[in-house]
């Protein structure tokens, strides 16, 4: 590294430091490689950053909290200032949470910042994941990074749940009790697993210290490691980019890390932390003194987990109890819990995690993809994603059914029944509708490419015929709408070769083809140059403005006259 051309003392000092470091670490190569690395700019690429920065906020506020929180179930009597708790027996965990809230100055702010940041962390992970899913950013070479991100989602849920339970209040205690009930439902090993978790019978004396270790050590360490891996992959793969003029599979267009991206990303951290601080300042969250210290007897109406666990709660609420049965040997199988708490989320999450591999298998595509898809151009994927989101959303609503009942004056039983039906109909319906919308948008794109923007200007030919003038798209506008490929269902080798011998692996190939047909049977091809030329030669009026010197304008803004078919408008509404 040569840094000798500047004479000021500060620069000299900086140069000397850089030299010192480089001689010992060889960091020069790293700086050279990364300092001007290009990152594409788009707001949706910042969703993952929201997750990252809220996690940093969680770490900062979390370290503050650990200075005062006592992770113990040891009994103590509250003598602090909060009147409705005075003289109440409680665990030290709960008592120290109260102290943290009322006696440690700024402690309540930190608690609220920590909890809001946790909710934002999960929400940002989910929105980030939706962005990645709907734009196909999980395709080769990023499948593994999708799995890393998926694991982070699961770890985030565990981190949240373990932290939510730490204050040892009635609300989270009942959440733990539900967790215990779910654990006990596991066939064969349920009661032993419950003992494993609680160190004996529920609630026992061990849980809070154990959860604390899980919450402040195990899970954060895993999350940090996986975030590191996640970002390493991003650097390795370079970021994806949206389709657009000049952007190809071979390049990445954007701004250099130094200084633009560093300033934007660094600034965004402070914005994220600032917004969370704003929430912590103005909105109360998890007011544990309202719930009181954990006691197995009480429970309060509106007992729900944080939002990211709400789907599980809803799933449990919807399942009819009749599913539980006793086997011939006299063993109890709690299918009324196993199905909603394990099988349904298992299916939904497995589908999420495995989707990139399924799509790759049925697409038969082994190329790298760095240009993102526009969601409309992948109707099956978009519709599938929407239906999974809808399924989770319906479950989350079902988990809030008592609040829906009181706020909209409905019967909780009717709501439950409605959701029992909706959980089957909703995802299916949203799949069909989304797919239709995607195909419709693609047709609209085609129409726009072929015929240009409507200008609202109506001209009359000498023959008395009216037509509306369309303004053709410029090359950049058009490129956005024609750059993609419409994927076709897999074509496979025939079952038998030329000598009539049935080949191995045909059955598997046939299955892949069938699934592939489900994915790609309905499609809209992007406009080809030939089609555009053909359309132009049909619809001469698009070029009218050049030919007709003084068109008779009869109106503006709306399609006054429907031109009839003979004037060559069959291309206007292409039947695909």
């Amino acid at each position, binding site marked *: 590294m040569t840094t000798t051309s500047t004479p000021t003392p500060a620069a000299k000092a900086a140069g000397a430091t850089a030299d010192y470091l480089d001689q010992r670490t060889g960091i020069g190569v790293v700086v050279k490689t990364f300092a001007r690395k290009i990152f594409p700019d788009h707001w949706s690429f910042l969703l993952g950053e929201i997750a990252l920065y809220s996690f940093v906020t969680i770490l900062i506020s979390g370290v503050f909290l650990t200075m005062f929180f006592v992770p113990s179930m040891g009994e103590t009597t509250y003598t602090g200032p909060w009147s409705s708790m005075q003289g109440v027996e409680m665990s030290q965990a709960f008592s120290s949470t109260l102290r943290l809230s009322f006696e440690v100055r700024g402690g309540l702010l930190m608690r609220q910042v920590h909890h809001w940041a946790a909710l934002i962390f999960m929400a940002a992970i989910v929105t980030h994941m939706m962005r990645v899913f709907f734009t196909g950013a999980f395709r080769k070479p990023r499948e593994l990074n999708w799995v890393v991100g998926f694991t982070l989602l699961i770890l985030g849920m565990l981190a949240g749940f373990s932290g939510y339970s730490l204050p040892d209040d009635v609300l989270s205690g009942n959440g733990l009790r539900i967790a215990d009930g779910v654990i006990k439902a596991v066939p064969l090993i349920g009661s032993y697993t419950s003992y494993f978790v609680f160190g004996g019978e529920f609630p026992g004396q*061990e849980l809070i210290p154990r959860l604390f270790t899980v919450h402040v050590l195990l899970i954060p360490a895993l999350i940090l490691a996986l975030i590191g891996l996640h970002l390493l992959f991003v650097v390795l793969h370079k970021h994806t980019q949206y389709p657009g003029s000049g952007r190809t599979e071979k390049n990445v267009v954007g701004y250099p890390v130094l200084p633009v991206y560093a300033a934007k990303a660094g600034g965004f951290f402070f914005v994220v932390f600032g917004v969370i601080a704003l929430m912590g300042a103005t909105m109360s969250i998890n007011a544990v003194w309202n719930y009181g210290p954990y006691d197995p007897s009480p429970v309060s109406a509106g007992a729900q987990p944080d939002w990211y666990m709400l789907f599980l709660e809803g799933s449990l609420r919807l399942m009819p109890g009749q599913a539980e049965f006793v086997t011939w040997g006299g063993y109890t199988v709690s299918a009324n819990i196993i199905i909603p708490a394990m099988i349904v989320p298992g299916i939904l999450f497995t589908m999420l995690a495995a989707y990139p591999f399924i799509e790759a298998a049925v697409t038969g595509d082994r190329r790298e993809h760095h240009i993102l898809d526009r969601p409309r151009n992948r109707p099956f994927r978009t519709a599938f994603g929407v239906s999974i989101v809808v399924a989770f959303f319906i479950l989350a609503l079902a988990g809030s*059914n008592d609040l829906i009942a009181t706020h909209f004056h409905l019967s909780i039983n009717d709501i439950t029944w409605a959701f029992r039906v909706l959980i089957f109909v909703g995802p299916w319906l949203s799949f069909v509708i989304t797919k239709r919308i995607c195909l419709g948008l693609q047709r609209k794109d085609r129409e726009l490419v072929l015929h240009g923007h409507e200008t609202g200007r109506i001209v009359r030919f000498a023959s008395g015929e009216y037509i509306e003038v369309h303004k053709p798209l410029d090359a950049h506008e058009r490129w956005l709408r024609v750059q993609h490929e419409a994927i076709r269902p897999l074509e496979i080798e025939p079952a038998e070769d030329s000598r009539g011998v049935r080949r191995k692996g045909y059955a598997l190939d046939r299955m892949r083809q069938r699934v592939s047909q489900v994915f790609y049977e309905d499609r809209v091809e992007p406009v080809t140059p030939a089609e555009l030329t053909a359309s132009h030669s049909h619809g001469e009026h698009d070029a009218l403005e050049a030919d007709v010197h003084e068109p008779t304008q009869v109106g503006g803004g709306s399609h006054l006259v429907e031109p009839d078919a003979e004037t060559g408008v069959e291309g206007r509404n292409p039947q695909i």
Partner: protein
Amino acid sequence: MSTHDTHSHELEPHGDGTLPDRFENPGHPEHHQRLGDLDPKANKKAERQVLALFTVSVVGTIAFAVAYFALGDPTTDPTKIASATRTENLWLGLTLAFALLGIGTGAVHWAKTLMNDHEMSEERHAIASDAESREAALQALQDGAEDSGISRRGALKGAVIGALALFPITIALPLIGNIGGDWNVGKLKHTMWKKGTRLARDPSGRAIKASDVTIGSVFHVIPENLEEAEHPLDEKAKAVVLLIRLDPRDIKSEQGEGWSYDGIVAYSKICTHVGCPVALYEQQTHHLLCPCHQSTFDVADSAKVVFGPAKRALPQLPITIDDEGYLIAQSDFHEPVGPSFWERKK
């Protein structure tokens, strides 16, 4: 205006007169200059804005410190602790937010308005290593394996794998031995109720006389000797009971002959679904509703499930009265309380 020649060079036929199959990428769009790039005044203005934003941050931090010292301890007046805490939380939070947002928006505004905004393009390279490197890597692995002789010395391979597979037992054994307490899952099947245990009010622990229980009342009940248990919370988690007096004419059925006393019935408060306290008693319908997952039980009819995700009725505690008129248990529950588990009927 003609589209054919101004915008779409890709519509030009190839030399042989055919059109290409696909459009071609038109290349990077033209760069648009920002106001600040053209007008030094605007540039200067943007700089001042960035300066102002960072100043907001500094002011925010100072205000935070001022608020911290000026507001004083919110717990000094016990009657105003809620509002004083709220005021403190609000001021500390808002000033913190200003300190942070000032830096954040300042940096972003700087990047957007003053830093170079020419988009740059960088080439991507295939992720996979080239064939040569792959071959070298493979060779290196083979050489390593060869050197170790692991393929030739089968016994060694087995020993290494065996040792590695076994050593975690040294950690797992004591961990598993202790992590589940005494591992006596049989405790799940019993509670501390036994013949003669008085029913007492939760949480005060005062015993209940049959004459205390009026029609339509509901008592939340614990065993009178709960505090004598080794782990009162663990016992309470299983033993809590709901005591309700119905008009004897309303009782359609109960789980055992003579398990109630003069219309007073006692059912486990722990839901047979996943164990929430089932505590919402609707006096008119005699229904018990669980607030967690809305399992509904009919107290007048053996606490059978009438709605929701629970399958089994709440276990009934057989009760009677002692000589002094206090309600007592006839025995423990006749089946395990709470959520189902695999061996509950064994």
